């Protein structure tokens, strides 16, 4: 077993790191202050550099590399901030993968290359007012009408809502109850009947728009069907890519905090010496490093076993669960080590701390990952309804 990255992967990682560290700090501050998402001209820059198509198939204009290569790039962006990294997450690990792999070839050929070129963002919309962790309670209705699909319902917490050009909307077909009735449809911005609620104000994740989506007799062609009834398992299988993307964003936030605080404790002097010379600081720093490294290995294992295919549910859940928990712990420790400078907005650590919290809520809460893990361990699926 060889845990070293290949020379190609090191080159990609280095390119992403250089770009992110040199170019994105100012953008991250702007996004944090305004809560505006990454602007169009920057999306084009990301695209020109190839960051939005790392693991997209070559026929769709991507590099066709394995998922792990995309995650290496994503971590470097997330070290700077969630706001600057979010488009990379959406394009490499998020809904673009669903459109690419499950969409009608004509739809994929039209949408995916535009995502790689930074001309369109695609959002995923799963939750509803009464369907969160219990996703299969979702009620947004989809019905076939001639050559169209008609959607009605309300979606909640859609990251990217109002700013994305396309939406992967989870919905229930023809009134079929339970998981069997759940599928997904692609809806483009500007489709009549599609509207958005007020932007939510979030604790962190500035620059990641979030809002309700209202679907009022939204009519799309049948070719926009991503998964029909009975295909929920397929959707969730693909969602393991998103889980690893989520885990990598959490990892990046933690790794960025660790890098920042490692510099700080060597510069900050108290009692006439740098505070890294105190054993309490050494132990804390070591504990943070152990957590970050362990999270990275869990993610890399799951992604590397997946190759260009789908990650395993158990491995992806373990990686997500662990990364979601340690990112909060690592950012909290880093904030504490920086004292007043950690608590002050100016130095960025309080932003990392707030950002760290979201990942264990988004894309399947920490506790439900644990239920997945336990189920995987004993070879059962635990029915939460009975």
């Amino acid at each position: 077993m060889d845990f070293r990255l290949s020379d190609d992967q090191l080159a990609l990682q280095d390119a992403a790191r250089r770009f992110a560290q040199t170019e994105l700090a100012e953008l991250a501050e702007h996004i944090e202050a305004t809560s505006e998402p990454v602007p169009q001209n920057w999306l084009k820059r990301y695209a020109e550099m190839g960051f939005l198509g790392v693991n997209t198939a070559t026929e769709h204009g991507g590099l066709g590399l394995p998922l792990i290569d995309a995650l290496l790039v994503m971590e470097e962006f997330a070290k700077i901030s969630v706001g600057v990294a979010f488009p990379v997450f959406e394009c490499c690990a998020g809904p673009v993968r669903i459109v690419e792999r499950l969409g009608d070839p004509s739809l994929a050929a039209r949408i995916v290359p535009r995502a790689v070129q930074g001309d369109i963002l695609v959002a995923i919309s799963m939750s509803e007012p009464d369907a969160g962790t219990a996703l299969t309670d979702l009620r947004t209705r989809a019905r076939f009408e001639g050559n169209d699909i008609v959607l009605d319902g309300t979606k909640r917490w859609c990251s990217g809502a109002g700013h994305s050009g396309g939406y992967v909307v989870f919905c229930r077909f023809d009134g079929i109850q339970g998981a069997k009735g759940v599928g997904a449809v692609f809806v483009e911005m500007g489709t009549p009947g599609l509207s958005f609620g007020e932007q939510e104000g979030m604790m962190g994740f500035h620059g990641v728009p979030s809002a309700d989506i209202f679907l009022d007799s939204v009519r799309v062609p049948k070719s926009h069907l991503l998964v029909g009834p009975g295909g929920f398992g397929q959707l969730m299988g693909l969602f393991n890519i998103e889980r690893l993307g989520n885990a990598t964003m959490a990892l990046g936030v933690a790794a960025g905090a660790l890098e920042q605080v490692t510099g700080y404790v060597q510069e900050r002097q108290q009692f006439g010496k740098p505070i890294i010379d105190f054993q309490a600081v050494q132990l804390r720093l070591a504990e943070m490093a152990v957590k970050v490294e362990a999270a990275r290995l869990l993610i890399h294992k799951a992604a590397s076993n997946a190759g260009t295919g789908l990650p395993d549910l158990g491995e992806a859940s373990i990686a997500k669960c662990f990364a979601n928990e340690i990112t909060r712990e690592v950012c909290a420790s880093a904030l504490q080590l920086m004292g007043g400078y950690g608590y002050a907005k100016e130095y960025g650590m309080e932003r990392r701390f707030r950002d760290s919290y979201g990942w264990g809520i988004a894309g399947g809460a920490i506790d439900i990952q644990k239920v997945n893990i336990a189920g995987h361990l004993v070879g059962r699926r635990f029915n939460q309804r009975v």
Partner: protein
Amino acid sequence: MKVIVAVKRVVDYSVRIRVKPDGSGIDLANTKMSMNPFDEIAVEAAVQLKEAGKVDEIVVVSIGPTPALETIRTALAMGADTGLLIRSDEAIEPLAAAKLLRAVALEEGCELAILGKQAIDDDANQTGQMLAALLDWPQATFASAIAIDGKVATVTREVDGGLQTLELDLPAVITTDLRLNQPRYATLPNIMKARKKVIAEKTPDAFGVDITPRLTVLATEEPESRKAGVKLGSVAELLGKLKDEAGIL
């Protein structure tokens, strides 16, 4: 027109240099290495000339150990056409480097050589000048602007008194200063393409160049650490200090 660009693998500019405890040199174990920043500017200058249709082919040469292949790959990913590594694990002094570059420039039929004005490891600032002398080509060092028109290069140089503009007949040697350009980032697609290119490898012997060091390093020491400064409350206080303590006034 073919242009030769030399790139050196050096300690990354952001790394804090550590002197070996026995003073025999710099500790390079586990140290991040990168392309010399002035050489990146040289590569960018060559690529811009190629984009402007003034140059047909860019040959990138590095002299150093096997990992210098990565430095060459970076240049290829930025837009250079072919790479050559002259492999040596010995320290290469400027005169040896200039002799080797001369041999390559003549062999490849290059009409222009663009080099970084100096490498940030030894800061020698000699190779470009020596190369020009050995080739008997005109030289323009510390370039802050380059224009090529036919067989004439017009180069603006940053000198102590301001800016100096030189006109050189090609073939010529140009060395780059910091403000010549802002090197581009290699894009991921270009990085992947560059990784598939074959880089030629040779040894100094193949060019019949003797690289035996002419210099002996006697000692390597940390610079003396700076004493802490003091904050003063007023100009009067400053004048007092300059008069009484520094003895300047």
